[in-house]
């Protein structure tokens, strides 16, 4: 797409470096036996990593705002499904 921006090679490599660093962080934290906190941090880091891939690699950064709205709709739906199922599971 000519109208679409593309990042430089270097910035893609930087994003990749960040992803690698985050991976080592998450593996290290998992080894520290933090209990309930470890799953929270693991998911938090996974969210950051996922967002980096979506935002830079999948070029959401340069897409029309409509793409973000659509992605939001999908993620909200997934969240709703999860939360509502736990209305059952947590109170049984």
């Amino acid at each position, binding site marked *: *797409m*000519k109208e679409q921006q*593309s*990042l*430089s*090679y270097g910035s*893609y*490599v930087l*994003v*990749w470096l960040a*992803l*690698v660093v985050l*991976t080592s962080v*998450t*593996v290290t934290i*998992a080894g520290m036996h933090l209990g309930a906190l*470890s*799953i929270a941090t*693991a*998911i938090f*880091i*996974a969210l950051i*990593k*996922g967002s980096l*891939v*979506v935002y*830079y*690699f*999948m*070029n959401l950064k340069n*897409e*029309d705002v409509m*793409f973000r709205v*659509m*992605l939001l709709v*999908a*993620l909200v*739906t*997934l969240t709703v*499904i*999860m939360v509502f*199922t*736990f209305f059952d*599971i*947590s109170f049984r």
Partner: protein
Amino acid sequence: MSVQAASPATHHKDHTGARIGMWLFLFTEILLFGGLFLLYSVYRSTFPEDFHYAATHLDTLVGTANTLILLTSSLTVVLAIAALRRNNRKLCTIMLSVTILAGLLFMVNKYFEWHHKFDIGLYPNSKELLRRAPGENLFYGLYFAMTGIHALHVIIGLGVLSVMLWIVAHKPKKTITVGPLQSDRLSLVEDQRGAVWTHEGEGEIAEAVVTLVYKSNEEINDDTWSKLENSGLYWHLVDVIWIFLFPLLYLIT
């Protein structure tokens, strides 16, 4: 005036439309795995200890290695797209090849990982698993379902990327399609066979033998970009899903 339009013609090259379609498809993938994540979170909250114990049999090293491999393949595929944008076909070909190799490496690791599980009697419905606590059986049920379906997606992605590699390496033609030009009542529409239908004024339609397709050695046409970009989107999603699978399965000991 008589207008015999050409066959499902003007297959408009709407690249934004194609990307919308691809993203929508990726949403379905997210929700597909979403069902598995839902099962995972329910069973994990029900059997936290069993899950912890069961996960000790997973090899964190292999998991981490595969994570790094997939992350790197995501980088190379995005570099391939950037290279194609800059008309650097050689770099694009190299990067695509690296991506495919990385994907294969991922599958090889996965194969040995599963093989090892089977060797120690951990496979669906195995006596060993049924002997253990229910939560452990569920963990492995989810492990095989999640990594299995993910691996299937890797294989599909590899197929798609191989096709793209072939297309990029074989120097596609640059295609120019003209029309329909309504201002002077002339329309040139390319039909599926590449023949061009022309229509002028009030008269009849004649099938012209000229095809307005010409080859160019260097420039890649927009279609190839669009296709490669969408294949890349798919590959990234496979990566994103792994980013979530990895901590949930390997890092909960």
